[in-house]
C-alpha cells in the first residue's frame, strides 16, 4: 500500500508542490505506507534534489521537452498505471488550477472520491480532511470511507516540513506517446505585478484617506510584499488619483478576495457592495467612528501612513 504525491508543475518546483509532498509524508508516516512521487513534464534537472527529506521512496519521472504542459490526456493514463503498479491507496496533489484538473481526472478514472482544496489533512484509521465550502463560510470535516482516496491541498496554507532522512530513488521513464486531442499552442507567462482585481486573493485598497496620488507607493509596497492587487474607493477615483479600473464597489468591480485590507476608506455602502464577499476584511482608518469598523473583521484605528509601513515590514518578515 502506498501514497502517491503528484508534482503537478511546469518545469519548476514551486512551494505548492512541496506543501503537498509534506502532507503526503505526514500521512504516509501515520498510515505507515510508502511514499511515491510522480513528475511529468519538462526536465527538472537538479531541482529534484529539493524533494529530499520528505521520506519519498521513489520518484517516477517522465521528462520530455515536448510535453510543455501538464496535460491530462498524457498524464492520466500514466497515473492510472502507477496506481496499479505501486498499489496506491491515497493520492495527494496540490490545488492549483492544473493540480485540481489532474486530481479530478484521475479520480474519475479510478472511480475514487476526491476532496479538492483541503486546508487540513489527517489520518485516523482512514483519510480525513477539512475543506471550506460556501466560499469559506462553512468548514466541513470529511472522512473517506473508500479507497483509493484523493485530495488536493490548498497552496500556501500548510507548511513545508522535511523530517526524514535519505534521498529518493529516481526512476526515469519514457514519456508515452499519446495522440492528444487538446494540443497546447503556447504558454504566455505574465509578470506577477499585474494581479487582476477580480481574481486577486489579497487586495489592498486605498480611499480618500490616501491624501493624494503621490502616496500610492505606501500601499503598493504592501501589495508587492503580499502579492496583492491594488484597489480604490470611488472617492479616490473621482479625485483623479487612480484609474477607474481600480474602483471597487457598486459601480466599480465586485471582488471576493480572501483578504481585503481597506486603508483610509470610510466603508460607505456603495463601496461595501463591491467587497462584501471578501472572506476577511481588515480596516485601517484614523476615525474610530468610520462605518468600515462596523463591517470589518479586524480594525486598526490609526493613521495609515504609520500603520501600513509597519504592516509591510511585519509582512515582509513573516513571508521571508
Amino acid at each position, binding site marked *: 500500500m502506498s501514497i502517491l504525491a503528484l508534482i503537478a508543475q511546469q518545469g519548476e518546483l514551486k512551494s505548492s508542490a512541496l506543501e503537498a509532498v509534506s502532507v503526503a509524508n505526514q500521512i504516509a508516516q501515520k498510515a505507515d505506507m510508502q511514499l511515491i512521487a510522480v513528475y511529468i513534464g519538462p526536465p527538472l534537472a537538479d531541482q529534484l534534489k529539493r524533494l529530499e527529506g520528505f521520506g519519498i521512496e521513489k520518484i517516477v519521472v517522465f521528462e520530455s521537452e515536448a510535453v510543455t504542459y501538464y496535460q491530462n490526456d498524457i498524464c492520466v493514463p500514466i497515473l492510472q498505471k502507477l496506481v496499479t503498479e505501486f498499489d496506491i491507496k491515497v493520492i495527494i496533489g496540490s490545488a492549483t488550477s492544473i493540480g485540481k484538473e489532474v486530481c479530478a*481526472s484521475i479520480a474519475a478514472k479510478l472511480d475514487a472520491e476526491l476532496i479538492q482544496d483541503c486546508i487540513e489533512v489527517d489520518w485516523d484509521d482512514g483519510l480525513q480532511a477539512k475543506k471550506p465550502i460556501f466560499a469559506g463560510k462553512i468548514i466541513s470535516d470529511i472522512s473517506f470511507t473508500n479507497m483509493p482516496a484523493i485530495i488536493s491541498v490548498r497552496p500556501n496554507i500548510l507548511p513545508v516540513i522535511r523530517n526524514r532522512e535519505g534521498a529518493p530513488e529516481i526512476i526515469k521513464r519514457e514519456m508515452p506517446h499519446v495522440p492528444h486531442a487538446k494540443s497546447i499552442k503556447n504558454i504566455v507567462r505574465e509578470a506577477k505585478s499585474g494581479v487582476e482585481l477580480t481574481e486577486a486573493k489579497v487586495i489592498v485598497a486605498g480611499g480618500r484617506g490616501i491624501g493624494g496620488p503621490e502616496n500610492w507607493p505606501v500601499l503598493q509596497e504592501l501589495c508587492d510584499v503580499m502579492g496583492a492587487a491594488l484597489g480604490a474607493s470611488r472617492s479616490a477615483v473621482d479625485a483623479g488619483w487612480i484609474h477607474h479600473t481600480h474602483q471597487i464597489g457598486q459601480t466599480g468591480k465586485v471582488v471576493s478576495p480572501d483578504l481585503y485590507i481597506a486603508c483610509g476608506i470610510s466603508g460607505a455602502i456603495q463601496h461595501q457592495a463591491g467587497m462584501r464577499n471578501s472572506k476577511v476584511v481588515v480596516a485601517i482608518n484614523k476615525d474610530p467612528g468610520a462605518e468600515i469598523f462596523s463591517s470589518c473583521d479586524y480594525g486598526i484605528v490609526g493613521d495609515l501612513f504609520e500603520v501600513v509601513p509597519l504592516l509591510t515590514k511585519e509582512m515582509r518578515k513573516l513571508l521571508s
Partner: protein
Amino acid sequence: MKIVVLIKSVPDTASIFKVAEDNKFVVIGNPKFIMSPYDEYALEEAIKVKESVSGEVVVVSFGDENALEVMRTALAVGADSAILVENSDADSFTGKGVSKVLAAVIKTLSPNIIFAGKQAVDDDGCQVPERVAEILGISHASAVTRFELQGLTAEADREVEGGYCTMEITFPALCTVEKGINTPRYPTLPNIMKAKRKEIRKMTLEELNLSADDVRPGLTVNSISLPRQERLLKKLEGEIGAQVKQLTSILREEKIGL
C-alpha cells in the same frame, strides 16, 4: 453544433447558515436559489457559440426541485431545452456520483461541446465537469478565460500558475470557465415568459440505469463548523506597533491571504 451546459442551483452567496442537528448546514430564512455564478458564464459562452454558428444549447442539471427555477432562468437566458435529473436527496451525492449521473444523461445527447462553471459556489467541489469528461472519454480544459471557435476547433486560454496558456481544442471537448470570460446577459421578458411554458425534461436515476451502488458516496461528513457567518468586528488594541503585530499573527495563524 450541439452544446451542453452543466448547471447547478445553489443558495445565493449572501445566504447565512446555521448548523442543524444532523451535522448538515441549513440556510436561515427562505433561501433564494440561484444558478451558480460560474455556470452563468458557462451558459453565456454556450449561447454565444450557438449564436455564432447554428446549433442548440441543452442545459443539464442534477438536483432537487429547487433546481427547476434555475433551469427556467437558463431557458429564459437562451438555452433551447433543459433536462433535470431530479432527486430529493441530490445534496448527499458526492462529485463521484453526480458526475456519473450527468455523464449518463450527456451520453444520450452526444454534444460537440460541453461547458460548465469551474466550480459550484456551494460545495466548491471543483471536479464534476472534469470527471464527466473522463467518463465520456473526451478531452477537457479547466478554468478557461477565453474561448474562440475557429471552424472545427477552438482556441482557448486558461490560467496556469503565474500566467496563462493558449490551447487548441478539437471536439468533442469539455471546458470549464472562469469568471470574466464574458458578461452574462440579462434575460428578456418574452424569453422569461416563453421559458415558463417550455417543458423541463425530468429524468430519474432509474431511467439512467444507475444503481444505488454506482452513486454511493465514499465520504462521510463528520462535522461542520461556521467560522465566519458575520464579520468579527474586532478592533485591535494597544500601541500601533503591537496592533500590527497582533494582526500579522492572526493572519499567520488563520492562514489568511498568505
